[in-house]
C-alpha cells in the first residue's frame, strides 16, 4: 500500500481537531494509516520516521497542514474527498454565539467580538502561547495558559506582568481550573461549596476536588498555577495571588494548596501568607512527610491527596469522612487473586495518565516495597529507566510525559499507548499487579473504562495462558456528575476484572500489598 501526502498551505488547525479528523478517516475501509499534522520540523521528522512522508514533501512549513494517508487507492481517494468536510465540521460547529458573527481567527478579534470576556483560555502550541498570553494580559484579561513548552523565562515575565496588573495567570501547563463553578480545561463536575483550592498540580487538583465532591463537600474555586509556580525561579507568584484571592473571597471558608514539594524559600513565603489568613488551610505537598514542615498557625499538612480532601471537608463542613470501600475483591478485599500468584510474580507495574498520580504512587509505595521503584519520571536520578518503553523491577510510568505524547493525544484521551503497554506487562512473568489511574471529567475520553476494558481482558487471557493470574488495581478520579459517570465507569472496570481502590494513594498501597503478599489492613495505617 502506498503513502499519499497532501499539503494545505497556511491552514493551521489545533492538534486535537487534527487527531479527531484522523480518527474518522482511519475508519474508512481500506485505509491503513492516517496522519494530519502541522508541518513543524519535529512533526515532519516524526512522519518521516513513521514512513508517512513521500519523497520531496519535506518543504511544508509550520503553518502548513500536511496530511498522510496510507491505504488502497480507492480508499485514499475517499479519505481525501472527505477531508475538507471533516475539517470544516470540526471547526465550525458550536462556536458559542447565536448571533452569527464571523468566526474570529485571532485573540484581538475575539476580544472585539466578546468585549465582556474577563478570562482568556489559551491552548495554542507552546511556541506561540507566551505571545498570546501577553496580549491577553495587556488587554487586562485574566489568563489560563493550558499550553506547555513555554520557557521559564517567559513564565517569570508573564507572571510579573500579571502581578503588576492585578491579574491571574494560571499556567503555563495549567491543565485544570474551576472558577465560580465553571470548568476550564480538563476538569471534573464538582459541587460548589466552601473549599477553595490553589494547585500547581493538575491531576492533583482533579483528585482533591473530585474526592471533596464524593465526600459531600464542595469547591468554591480551584485555581491552577502551572507546575513550576513553586520553583525558586517563579517564587509562587500565582500561588500567592490565588491565596490572596481566596482569602478575600466570600464563598471560600477553607483554603487548600496542592503541589509537588516547593522550593524551601518559596514554602516559607507560602506559610507566611497562609498564616496571616483568618481561614483554616490544608497544605498538601505530594511526596513529602507532613512531619517535615512546621506550621505557623491554622494549617494542617496532609500526606496524600485523599487525606487532604478529608481534612478540608472536616474543616469546612465539620464532619469526619470515612472514605470509600475497595470494590471488586469480594470477601477479603485484599486476598483477591493474591493466593494464586506464582513465586516469580514480584513487581508492581503502574501505568499512569496523570503525572501527579504516578508521583504520589511512587511515594506511597516507597516505604512498603523492599526494592526501589523505577520510572521515566523518577524520584531520584538513579531510578530512571534506561528505556521508558521497557519496565524494570517495580516500575511506574507517566504516560503523559513527552516521550509518549509526541504527536499523539494525551493518554487521558487516547488509550492506545496504555493498552499496548498493559499487554506488554501482562506477558512479563515477573509482574504481580498492574496499577492504573482512570481520569474522568471534561476533556477526558468519553468512556475511559470502556477503552481500557478490552485490554484488561486480553491481559488476563495472556496471563491465564501462562497459568498465571494478574490482579489489576485501578483508581478512578472523577465524580458521578462527570459526563462519563463515576458509577458507570466503576461497573465497566469491575466487569473487566479490576479491583477499584477509593483513591490513588489507596490503590498504590493495595498494589504494594499484593506484590508483597501482605494483607492490606496492615498497610492502611499510613492513611488517615
Amino acid at each position, binding site marked *: 500500500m502506498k503513502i499519499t501526502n497532501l499539503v494545505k498551505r*497556511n491552514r493551521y488547525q*489545533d492538534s486535537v481537531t487534527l487527531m479527531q479528523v484522523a480518527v474518522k478517516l482511519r475508519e474508512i475501509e481500506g485505509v491503513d494509516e492516517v496522519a494530519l499534522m502541522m508541518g513543524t520540523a519535529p512533526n515532519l521528522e516524526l512522519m518521516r520516521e513513521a514512513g508517512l512522508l513521500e519523497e520531496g514533501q519535506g518543504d511544508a512549513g509550520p503553518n502548513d497542514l500536511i496530511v498522510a494517508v496510507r491505504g488502497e487507492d480507492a480508499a485514499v481517494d475517499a479519505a481525501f474527498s472527505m477531508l475538507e468536510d471533516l475539517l470544516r465540521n470540526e471547526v465550525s460547529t458550536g462556536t458559542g454565539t447565536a448571533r452569527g458573527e464571523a468566526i474570529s481567527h485571532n485573540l484581538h478579534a475575539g476580544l472585539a467580538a466578546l468585549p465582556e470576556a474577563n478570562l482568556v*483560555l489559551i491552548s*495554542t502550541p507552546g511556541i506561540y502561547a507566551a505571545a498570546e498570553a501577553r496580549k491577553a494580559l495587556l488587554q487586562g484579561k485574566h489568563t489560563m495558559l493550558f499550553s506547555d513548552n513555554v520557557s521559564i523565562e517567559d513564565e517569570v515575565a508573564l507572571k510579573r506582568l500579571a502581578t503588576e496588573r492585578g491579574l491571574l495567570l494560571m499556567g503555563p501547563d495549567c491543565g485544570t481550573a474551576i472558577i465560580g463553578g*465553571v470548568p476550564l480545561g480538563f476538569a471534573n463536575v464538582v459541587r460548589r461549596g466552601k473549599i477553595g483550592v490553589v494547585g500547581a498540580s493538575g491531576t492533583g487538583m482533579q483528585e482533591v476536588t473530585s474526592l471533596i465532591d464524593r465526600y459531600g463537600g464542595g469547591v468554591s474555586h480551584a485555581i491552577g498555577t502551572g507546575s513550576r509556580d513553586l520553583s525558586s525561579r517563579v517564587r509562587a507568584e500565582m500561588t500567592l495571588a490565588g491565596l490572596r484571592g481566596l482569602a478575600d473571597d466570600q464563598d471560600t471558608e477553607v483554603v487548600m494548596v496542592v503541589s509537588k514539594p516547593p522550593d524551601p524559600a518559596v514554602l516559607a513565603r507560602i506559610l507566611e501568607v497562609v498564616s496571616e489568613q483568618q481561614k483554616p488551610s490544608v497544605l498538601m505537598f505530594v511526596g513529602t512527610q507532613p512531619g517535615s514542615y512546621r506550621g505557623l498557625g491554622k494549617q494542617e499538612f496532609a500526606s496524600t491527596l485523599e487525606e487532604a480532601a478529608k481534612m478540608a471537608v472536616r474543616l469546612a463542613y465539620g464532619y469526619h469522612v470515612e472514605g470509600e470501600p475497595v470494590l471488586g475483591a469480594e470477601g477479603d478485599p485484599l486476598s483477591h487473586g493474591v493466593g494464586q500468584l506464582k513465586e516469580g510474580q514480584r513487581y508492581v507495574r503502574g501505568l499512569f495518565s496523570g503525572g501527579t498520580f504516578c508521583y504520589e504512587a511512587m511515594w506511597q509505595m516507597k516505604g512498603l516495597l523492599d526494592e526501589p521503584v523505577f520510572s521515566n519520571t523518577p524520584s531520584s536520578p538513579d531510578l530512571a529507566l534506561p528505556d521508558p518503553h521497557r519496565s524494570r523491577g517495580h516500575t511506574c510510568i507517566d504516560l503523559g510525559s513527552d516521550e509518549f505524547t509526541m504527536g499523539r493525544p494525551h493518554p487521558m484521551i487516547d488509550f492506545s499507548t496504555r493498552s499496548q503497554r498493559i499487554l506488554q506487562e501482562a506477558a512479563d512473568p515477573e509482574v504481580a499487579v498492574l496499577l492504573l489511574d482512570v481520569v474522568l471529567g471534561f476533556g477526558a475520553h468519553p468512556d475511559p473504562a470502556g477503552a481500557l476494558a478490552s485490554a484488561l481482558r486480553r491481559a488476563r487471557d495472556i496471563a491465564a495462558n501462562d497459568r498465571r493470574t494478574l490482579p489489576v488495581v485501578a483508581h478512578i478520579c472523577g465524580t458521578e456528575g462527570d459526563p462519563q459517570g463515576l458509577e458507570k465507569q466503576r461497573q465497566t472496570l469491575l466487569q473487566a476484572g479490576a479491583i477499584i481502590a477509593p483513591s490513588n494513594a489507596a490503590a498504590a498501597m493495595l498494589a504494594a500489598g499484593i506484590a508483597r503478599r501482605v494483607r492490606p489492613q496492615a498497610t492502611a495505617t499510613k492513611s488517615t
Partner: protein
Amino acid sequence: MSDNSIADLLRTGPTVLNVGVKTFADTLEQVGARHLHVDWQPPAQGDPQLGALLAAMSDDDTPDSLGARIKAANDEALQGILAADPVWEDVRPAREVWPGMDERVLYHSGPPIEWGRMCGPMQGAVIGCILLEGWARDEHAARHLAASGGVRFEPCHHHGAVGPMAGLVSPSMPVFVVRNTDRGNYSYSSLNEGMGKVLRYGAYSPEVLARLRWMCDVLGPTLQVGIRALGSVPLKPLMAQALQMGDELHNRHVAATSLLFKTLAPALIRALDDRERAASALDPIAANNYFFLNLAMAACKVMLDSALDIPHSTVVVTMARNGVDFGIRVAGTGDRWFTGPAAVPDGVYLPGFTEADAAGDIGDSAITETAGLGGFAMGGAPAVVKVVGGTPDDALDFTRSMHTITLAQNPNWTMPALGFAGTPTGIDVRKVLDTNTLPIINTGIAHREAGVGQVGAGLVRPPMQCFTEALKALGEAVV
C-alpha cells in the same frame, strides 16, 4: 486593573475567550458558561519570534506602556488622515512645482528603482518622457541616455506626488495641485491621458507624444483657467458622494468623473471666451471614465502625508509598486521603504491576452487602498467586480476583511451596502501580521512590454515581507 480584579473574577465567574483547542469551548457550551471560541491561526504566518514582537507591541491601556505609546501615535496618525480636507486648487507645469526637475530628473511610481531593473512599461514611459522633453532625438538615444546615468530617477512619493501605472512625471507635464486645508500640505499628480496606448502603460509612439504635448500646451493651461476661476473643488465630499453612487475610486470613477464634470464645466465655459478651447478641455473628461483617478490619488496622498513621521505609529502611509518591487512606508519609520517582489495580479484579461502577457504589479494608485478606498471599499461598489473579477459577495467580504486590518472606519466615506459602515482606514502593520491578512488592491494590469497598454484588471496583494520587515524595524525603534 480595577475593572477586572482577581476578586471580581471570583465573584462574578468567568466569561471566557477560548483560544486554541475547541473541546474546551464545547465544555463551556455544555455547562452554559458565557464564552466565544476563536478559530485561532498562528500570527505572523507561524513565525514565533515575530509573534512575540507583535505581542510586546500589542495594545495596552496602561499609561506610558509601549502599547499605550503606540496607540497614542496611531490615534495621532488617524486624526491626521481623517481630519484631512483635500481640495483641488490648481494645475501647474511640473517644473514650476519642482524647479530642479529641469536638470533631467524624472519621477516614477513605486519605491526607488534604477533604469536597469525597470520593467518594460516603465522603461517605455521613461523613453516617452525623454523624447517629450527633447533630451534625446530618438528611442535609441533615449535608451542610451537613461542607461548611462544621464537622467536621474526619483519616486513620485519622495516629492509629495503620485502617478498611476508607470507614474512618469517630466518637467513639462501639467500636474494637479491638491491642498489639505487642515494641515496646509500639498500633493500632486499627473493628468489622466485616457485609455488605450498611453504613456503610463509604456507607450511612446508619435501619437502618444503628440497627445502629451497637447496636454502640456492646451489641456493643462485650460484646466488651470477653469480651476482658478472656481477657486477650489473640495474633493472629500465629492468622493463621499461618488462612493455612494457605486465608485470605489480606484478602478471605478464613473460617478466621480461625472460629478467633477458637473462642477467644472459651467465655470470653465464662463471663464473662457474661446468655446472650442473650453470644449476641447472638457471632451477628455467626458470621454474618460478614469479621468478622476489622478485627483482621487492626489487626495489620498495629501491625507496620508498628514501622518508622516509619527514615532511609534504602526499605520501604513504608502503602498506603491514600480512593476518590480512592491514597497510600503509606515508612519513610525520615516522615509524607509519596506519592499518585496511585485506580484502579477489575479485578474480578468482583455480578449487576446493572458497572465503570461502581464507585467508585475505597478503604480502609485494603491495610495487609494492605503487611504481606505479601492479594494478596501469594494463592498460599496459591487459593479467594479465586472472589471476586476469576482462576485458582489466577494466584494463585501473583501471590505469586511479589510476592517480587520485597519484601525478605524472613515465617518466621511460610508458605504450604503454595508449599513453605511465607514471605509476601512489606517492599515495597522500589527493587524496585518496578527490576522495574516494582506491588503487587497484593485488594479489595472499592464502588458509586460512597453507600449502595448492595458491587458486587464484584477486583484493583487502586497508581499507579506513588506509588513514583516516593517514590524521588525518598528520593533527596533521602540522595544
